[in-house]
């Protein structure tokens, strides 16, 4: 079933703030326009946070449900993109916790390498590929901190809150992640 509500075309160039207001008032077409506009970014971000594409898509789906429920309370509609990214981060961390509590082996860093997408071979040897490899080698908790900071734009305090750890631990993990990543990127060069 595809919902191609007639207003969707009219909404194509509507600013985020207006779409957020309409979605907050219950306009499904406006919400879908926002989801289409920011969906690929949410999905890419989720894949960087999760260990498999399937899990990442579950996280995006849960994030959209949360977003629809809460968008009426969003104060600054112009900030909807950052707000969506924060929801993805929270849902991803929740999903990670659930998985651990279900007794699965904790995140396997080496599985991450399969996450990014189908075009890996095309960019083999590029800086992107080198960074992808370096990220895959990081311990999970360091990688998460780095992704939340670099792609989520979260502050130390926000990351600490998201992950339920101290801001000092966040700083430490980020420092270790950056040291490793910088070193590996230099070796690649």
């Amino acid at each position, binding site marked *: 079933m595809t919902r191609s509500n007639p207003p969707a075309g009219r909404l194509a160039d509507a600013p985020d703030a207006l779409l957020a207001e309409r979605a907050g*008032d219950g306009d499904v077409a406006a919400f879908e326009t926002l989801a289409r506009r920011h969906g690929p970014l949410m999905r890419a971000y989720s894949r960087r946070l999760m260990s498999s594409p399937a899990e990442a898509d579950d996280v995006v789906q849960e994030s*959209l449900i949360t977003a629809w429920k809460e968008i009426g309370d969003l104060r600054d509609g112009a900030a909807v993109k950052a707000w969506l990214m924060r929801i993805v981060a929270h849902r991803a961390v929740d999903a990670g916790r659930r998985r651990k509590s279900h007794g699965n082996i904790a995140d396997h860093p080496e599985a991450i390498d399969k996450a990014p997408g189908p075009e890996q071979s095309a960019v083999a040897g590029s800086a992107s590929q080198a960074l992808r490899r370096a990220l895959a080698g990081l311990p999970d908790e360091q990688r998460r901190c780095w992704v939340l900071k670099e792609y989520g734009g979260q502050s130390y305090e926000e990351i600490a809150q998201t992950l339920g750890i101290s801001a000092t631990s966040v700083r430490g993990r980020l420092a270790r992640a950056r040291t490793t990543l910088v070193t590996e990127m230099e070796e690649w060069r």
Partner: protein
Amino acid sequence: MNPIRDCGRRIEDLSDYLETGFSADAAHIEHCPQCQARLAGLRSLHTAALNLMDDDVASLSGEGTGWLDGMLANLRLETRAGRSIPLASNTADLLTETEGAVIALVRNVGDSLGGVLIGRCRLDGEVTVPGAPVEVNVNVSARYGYPLPVMAEDLRAAILTELLVETELNVAAVNVAFTDMREPLAEPGRTDGGGL
């Protein structure tokens, strides 16, 4: 990093400096070859990170929207009912309509006018009390090129008429606030739903 001649600055200090452009230690950082080398490393890491995300988003966008279509179809977004508005002529049956339905009605009226997109719509007043005066407040994004006073007047009239026909609300006023202007359409032709 050369452990023998390590200047002792930590990478978190350098990344804070990179992020904020400020450090109490700036004088050292600016003149220390080791710090400069590590700053360069952090900068290239940041660039590589942005490129990686761009690559990921581009390749995911290239996969089409099938994944999202399915997701959105499965969401079954529940409607927002809001308050219940009684229909006075049916008091015996206690029939009501929802505030959400009335707001959708107002939105659709706006969408049928050229250049108008309605954002937030609020019904201010005791809508649950039959006959109580209600003010309708709408935020509007206008397409550049339409005269705003005319647009506002036409929109007010259209909303008022629609609410008179479709509801039993006692509409005391319709207030239009222009909150945004959109670029004119690339083509002069009207693909935007006709003129005013």
